[in-house]
């Protein structure tokens, strides 16, 4: 059945359509007014299983809500607020001044949580640099 190997030609994306899309994206990116001078990285721990849905997609968990509403969702547990503790918070200024706050005795697993915090921090820094490089390419 050689025919099966060939996919139908894909529907052509209308050129004007693509132009519109790119135009939209371009404006969106050029108009962002974001603060790239500082980075705030926060790591929290606690019980928040009610926000995670483990049933969906054949046992794979999904996060029900977008993170932006996460803290809001945390408070909804039958009227009783979930217990959430701060593991660490890092503030990096544009001149690389860094302020670290690390909680004491969050739990016996504190080391792993702190490792995760460091990874988030590294990841945030690297991503920001990549994004700035992109803007350099992009902004005329």
């Amino acid at each position, binding site marked *: 059945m050689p025919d099966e190997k060939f996919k139908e030609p894909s529907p052509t994306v209308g050129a004007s359509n693509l132009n519109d899309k790119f135009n939209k994206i371009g404006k969106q990116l050029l108009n962002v007014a974001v603060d790239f001078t500082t980075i*705030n990285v926060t790591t929290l721990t606690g019980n928040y299983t009610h926000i995670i849905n483990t049933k969906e997609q054949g046992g794979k968990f999904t*996060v029900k809500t977008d993170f932006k509403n996460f803290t809001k969702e945390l408070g909804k547990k039958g009227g009783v607020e979930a217990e959430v503790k701060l593991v660490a918070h890092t503030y990096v200024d544009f001149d690389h001044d860094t302020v670290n706050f690390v909680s004491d005795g969050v739990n016996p*697993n504190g080391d792993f949580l702190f490792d995760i915090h460091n990874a988030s921090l590294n990841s945030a820094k690297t991503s920001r640099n990549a994004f700035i490089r992109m803007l350099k390419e*992009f902004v005329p």
Partner: protein
Amino acid sequence: MPNAVTEAETLISEIIPATEVDKLEHGREAEILQPLLDLGYIKKAKKANLANGIRLFRKDYLSLNLIPEFAPKFLFLPATDLEGEELNLLHTLTALDGDFTLDILPQKGEINLCSRILHYRLSIHQLISFGVEKEFSSESLEAMTPLHVWIKNLPSAPLDLINLLGNIPALIQFINIDKNGGLNERIVAFKYQKEEAVSRFNVDISDDLNQEIEEDEQEEEEDNESDMLLLENEVDDHIDELQKETIFDRKEDEALKKDTRKNRKKRSRLIKVQAMIDVVLAKMNKISDEINIESDLLSKEINKLKKIQTTVSKEANRLTRIIQNFDKQIDQLEKSKKGLKKKERQLKRKIRRGAPQDEIDRRRQEIKKIKNANREIENLVIKKSTINVQLIPVDEDLRIIENRLNSFEKQMTKLIEEREQRINEKQKKLVALLKRLNNLKDKVDKIKFSFRGRLKKVLNEEFYLKEVQEGIFQNRNRNKLKTISEEDYNNFLIRLIQIFQWTNGFYYGKLDNKVGNRTFSSLDDMVTYSKGLRLKFILSRLSENQSGTKGYWILNIKYLFKKLSDNLLNVKADFTTKDLLEHYEKQVLKIESKGKKVGNEITDRCYGEIVEENQSDIQEDGTIRRIYYGIKNIATTLFDALNDLISIIKSGIEKLIYLLKNLIKIVYKEIREGVRKFKDGMIFLFGKRQFATPVGIDSAIITKFDFDFDAITFAPPQVSKKEMKIHTETLLRFSNNLNFSLVLTGKILKWALKLIDIGTPIGWAKLSLRIAIQYKRMIIEWLVKLGKDLTRHVISIKYKKNSKGTT
């Protein structure tokens, strides 16, 4: 917020259509499997083996420091997939263009990238019978011993020899030097594989060759080489002269020159002359078309004027008719006035004789009627003069139109006369040119192409006379050919030709030493794109029976290698894939700017076939085969052939199919790898940037980045070390791979906005090609940073002290 996410996904899928991505992704796995098989990282092309093969490959290249630190952190990558940069490296390692140099020999007992590449090259040349994955041993080096017997002056250092074996153009050039390869005292012979191998073989060449053989066999005397050369030169001079001639205006002349340039590389003078004849004939047709168009235009103008004339004369006629009507009425009134006057005069006479009162009254009435008639006549005369006034400009118009028509018709007659005179002159010139060309064609026909003459010319005289002329042609000694065809060096050379064609994109089959149909047609393609190379001089056949089904082919290897050295190997510019893609884009845009479309039906079909062939191919064991992924040589060939290939794509006619497939293979691969990166970048820009790793069955570590890269992470207290590791690796993979994809995305967005600015529409074809070019540019910049010698595209392995690769 879910809406925003869906919106972002929709946006990305609209810009990068899923069907296109699927089409391109199809077959990527085989592209990974093949070189992994070639280097012995896996034994069978099974998906299940992929992860282990990739793991071993990564371990090897990392220990050799082949991917720099600022590159994506490949260790965090999925186990069963390679990054574009890794795939690029893998294909470079298995290339045979001298792109990859081994700097150090493996230690005895080692199995690592070096031992694998070394064994791979030996197996390409059929020098080892053991597997590529075997540990490095004295056997590996001993495998090269026969080379020193066949070829003199080879580098004594095994490493240099291995690198020479991995650089096919250099190897051919080396062997072409007589004191090295001894080709001036050698012919290559091989037996017919099967009857159909010849009969199925491209009809033209077969006929050519058969005719050639007949001619050769009829020849009783030796060729008069010098006469032939003189005639050839004469014909060439004629062709040059004709090409210089200006018969047409500048524009036409340029088109003609372009046409003949296109045919420059065609394989014989006959074709060249025929092409010129075709151009002239086409011009003649065009001229007669021009006459028609011109006279069409003129008669249209005249028709238009005639229509106006009709309308205007209609109006004039109408007015004239009205005037005539008035005249009639006036006439009638005058007549009745006359009657009335007569009556009145009779009454007057009667009254004078003393008529009664009623007679007097009647007379009065008659006088009144006369007065009325007079008044009416006056009115009509006034009306008539008004119409007459109206008629004056209409008449004037008519006169003008008539004048104009007259002058126009005169003009047209003059124009046609002039035009015809001009065309006649041109046609006369063309007819003369055609005559000259036909004469030239006859002359070309008379040139005797002689395989034997050419063989004699390139071989050592004594060797030719004794061994070839006497031993083979005169005595018809097939045993001699049989002996030659069984020699190891003979087979090494046949293999080398096959490898050369393979690495140049002409050959698209297995490397099997069998000179089959594919080899023949690839030779034909190669001849088309090699200046001065002629198939008739390369191959000849010596039959054993009347029907010509048994016998040997004789290959003039010295001539072939000499020509290859002169042409294909001495390429001044080293073309990269980037150059090729840019050239491709330029051509495609040129066609599009003329309002035509470069359809992707044929390219899609080619790609589908490549994928299919490759997938079935890698399932077979043993032979080194399949698709060649090196670039340098192929890029050079394709660069030359690109215009022809594009017109093939445009017309949808399948020609030069191996070359075309090679082009499509490269273009689609680069588009695919570029689009992968571009998509990564787009997902980052417009995706939700949220990462979650499950912890146990009902919890998870979740990290969310906002637009200015502030991050917030939730991690449950019961996180294990394993879960922590998975999550950190996910985060680092995400951010480390961003550099490349985001810069690419930025460049593409900038390009797109520029096009929008000037109002040029962007379609997927244009976008994807641009992504591929930009991606390739970045890869090259990246390699420059890596410190690799990009002018020669050479990457070389330098061992780190602590590297001891084992499996």
